[in-house]
C-alpha cells in the first residue's frame, strides 16, 4: 500500500482524523489503515473509533449487541 497519511498525523485526535479522512473520500479499508498506521491501533480499536465517531454506537460492544437478533434471524433465513 502506497499510503500517505501525513495529513492525518497532524490531527491529534483519532476520531477527528477519521472524520477528516471520510470527508476526503477515503473508503472503509483506507480509514482503518490510516487509524492503525497513524495512531498505532489494532483492527478492533480502529473499528471502535469509527463507530463512535460516526455516532453509530457508544462502543463496539454496544453496536454488536444490537445485531444479535438480526444475525439470529439471518442465520435462520
Amino acid at each position, binding site marked *: *500500500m*502506497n499510503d500517505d497519511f501525513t495529513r492525518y498525523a497532524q490531527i491529534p485526535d483519532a476520531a477527528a482524523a477519521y472524520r477528516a479522512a471520510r470527508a476526503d473520500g477515503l*473508503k*472503509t*479499508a483506507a480509514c*482503518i*489503515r490510516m487509524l*492503525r*498506521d497513524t495512531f498505532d491501533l*489494532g*483492527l*478492533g480499536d*480502529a*473499528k471502535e473509533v*469509527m*463507530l463512535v465517531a*460516526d455516532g*453509530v454506537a457508544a462502543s*463496539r*460492544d454496544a*453496536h*454488536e*449487541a*444490537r*445485531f*444479535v437478533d*438480526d*444475525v*439470529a*434471524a*439471518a*442465520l435462520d*433465513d
Partner: protein
Amino acid sequence: MGVSGVSKYLFRPVDEVVREIGALPAADQDATLRALLAASRTTATIAEQAMSALGLDRGALLEYAVEDPWRSGLLDERSLLNVRATLLEAPKGPMTRAQIDALAAMGIEREHFGRVLAGCSVSFDMPAVTDTQQVMGGFVQLTPDSVASGVVLVRDVGGGMATLLAFRRRANALARAFDRPFVDFMGCELKNERLGRLLVRNGFEPATVEVPEVFGGGMMDVLTKRFDTREP
C-alpha cells in the same frame, strides 16, 4: 519499465497476462501498461486488451492509449466520453457479465476487479439495499473452492437485518459467478459475547488469521463458517 521489461508479457496467453497485471499494485499496473503501450504494436495490443479486461480503459491511461502511435483501435475515443466506462456495458476479456455484476453489487471498485481475479484479498464497501450509502466494509478473496468473505465493519444503524441478508445474498452470487461452491463467512474482531456465542452455536468456529494488507495487516481473531452455495 523499458522494452526489455515488457518482453516477458509476449507470446503468452492473454488471460494469464491480464491476471498477472491485475495482481500488481495500482501504480505498477499503470506503469506496466504505459510501458506496454509505448514499446511496440504487439505489446500495445496486449496492453489494450488488459486495460479493457481490467476495467482500466478510462481516465489518463486511456488518453495515453488513444494518443499512442501503436494504437490498435481496440480502445476508441468514445471511451473518453465514458460511453464504455460503465458497469452496464458488455464485458470484455476474461470476466462475464455475472461476475462484473456480482463484484459491483458487493461494492468492489472496478479498478480492483483484476486483483480479485488474481486471487488477492480485496476490500469492499457494500452499499445499502435501498440507496448508495455504504453500510458494510469488509474483504473478499477467491480461493480455489470458495469466496472468503470477511465482515470488518457494519455501519448500518437501522437496517441490520436487511444488510446482513443482502451481504449473504451478494456473497453467494459472487461465489456462483466465479464457480466457487462455497462461501467462507468471517466475522472479524468481534467483541460482544452474546453475538459470539450465537455464532458459535450456529457452527461458526474461532480462528486467528492474517488481516488482509488492505486493512493494515497483522493478525486478527475471527469466527468463521463455510456455507455451501449449492444448497437451496
